[in-house]
């Protein structure tokens, strides 16, 4: 698996898109720092971008890489390699190169701005950690979609739909439920609802670490009580890990049964 990972990673590191992605974050980091002139504020703005963009890039890149390397995968399948190592290697190759673009692209401008002497370092690290989690999650979901759909267009369609659902539609539905049942106590429900969507979970996690939860009203207080504690943090990270592990397991399961 490590060999496949190595080659997928090199392959991607040399593709133009990794550089575009890297350059985009670099530019975003620099621009935000100049505009905000403040590390903490830049982190908040960044969060809003990352929460939406990272899943989108993860899904698109994952699907694209899978379909593009299809013939090459067939070449690998004829070699004495286990199927699980081929696909996990490719998956990790994509996910890690994307994460690296994210971490380096944002990390470099922030470090030069004086991140290490600032109190924002923990918030910034949390941002990068959740960003990496989101990359791992959405690339894995993308590989699942691509493995289940031979048709490229369908695969891309489902991938975009998935992103749209988790990034936007889910929130809408969630909000509607809250309004419809506003006569009932909803703290537990909203907690669970947030936990079930990795994008919401990441957003809440960062927001509450940033001490702007006062904006969230009463529910914010309940959230703060939960996510603000170490227990909440641990539970959240466990949830994010489950979001990584389940799709990855399905990649292994599905690839073993697939015809090429």
């Amino acid at each position, binding site marked *: 698996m490590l060999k496949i990972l190595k080659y997928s990673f090199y*392959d991607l590191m040399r593709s133009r898109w990794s550089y575009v992605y890297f350059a985009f974050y670099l530019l975003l980091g620099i621009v935000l720092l100049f505009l905000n002139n403040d590390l903490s504020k830049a982190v908040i703005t960044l969060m809003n971008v990352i929460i939406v963009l990272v899943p989108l890039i993860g899904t698109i890149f994952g699907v694209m890489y899978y379909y593009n390397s299809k*013939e090459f995968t*067939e070449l690998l*399948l004829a070699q*004495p390699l286990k199927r699980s190592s081929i696909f996990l290697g490719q998956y990790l190759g994509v996910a890690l190169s994307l994460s690296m673009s994210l971490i380096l692209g944002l990390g470099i401008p922030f470090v030069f701005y004086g991140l290490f002497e600032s109190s924002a370092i923990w918030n910034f690290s949390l941002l990068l950690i959740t960003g990496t989690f989101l990359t791992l999650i959405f690339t894995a979901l993308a590989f699942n979609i691509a493995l289940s759909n031979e048709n490229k267009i369908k695969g891309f369609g489902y991938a975009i739909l998935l992103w749209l659902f988790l990034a936007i539609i889910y929130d809408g539905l969630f909000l509607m439920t809250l309004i419809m049942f506003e006569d009932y106590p909803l703290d537990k429900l909203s907690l669970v609802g947030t936990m079930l969507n990795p994008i919401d979970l990441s957003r809440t996690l960062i927001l509450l670490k940033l001490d702007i939860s006062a904006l969230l009203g009463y529910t914010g207080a309940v959230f703060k009580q939960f996510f603000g504690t170490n227990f909440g943090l641990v539970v959240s990270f466990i949830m994010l890990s489950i979001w990584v592990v389940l799709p990855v397991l399905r990649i292994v399961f599905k690839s073993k049964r697939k015809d*090429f």
Partner: protein
Amino acid sequence: MVTIQNLYKNFGKNDVLKGVDLSIKDGGIFAVLGPNGSGKTTLIKSILGMVIPNKGEISVLGENIKKSSDYRHKIDYLPQIANFPSNLKVKELIKMIKDLRGNTSNDEHLIELFRLEPFLNKKLGNLSGGTKQKVNIVLTFMFDSPLIILDEPTTGLDPISLIRLKDLIQKEKSNGKTILITSHIMSFVEEVSDEIVFLLEGQIYFKGTIQDLKTKTNQPDFEHAIASILTKNHA
């Protein structure tokens, strides 16, 4: 070398293989023939473990291939469409496959044979179809495995490379290897193969030498013998 028993495979409603029984002995060149969609590639891919059969047993060199990947060390496979990661250089791809399968020094000789030296530092995405196929051939023949499977090996090759490929196949045969070929070019098949396996609608219609086929169909030449099978069955 390869034993296939009662092999069934369907893709959705499309039954591709319907009970294939085949045994291929050690040594010699076997051509798998059949009209489009008769299941040639599916059969080959089943042997390689890329297609998972619905029913049936396949063993390669006496080892059941189900849930195993190590047996592929004994197979060299030339896929039909040569499409490689476009960011890699030819040299890097060869190095990579060596890294994955184990070292060999045979590649230098093959690169020289197919005149690939000027392309070694070029990216695979910039190569022409024929050059890609040559790279494909180098990747296949650089290992010393007892079973060689070639899926449409002649695609895109110029006449001189075709002659070199034929020599290469004959050389491997004289080394006692078993070679499985699929091709639509009948003259190529007639020239190189010792025995043919004719697939028709997911079953083995004929297995034997070209001479046997001519006698069976009462046709003077190979191309007409094949054509007569097809017309008889589709009329």
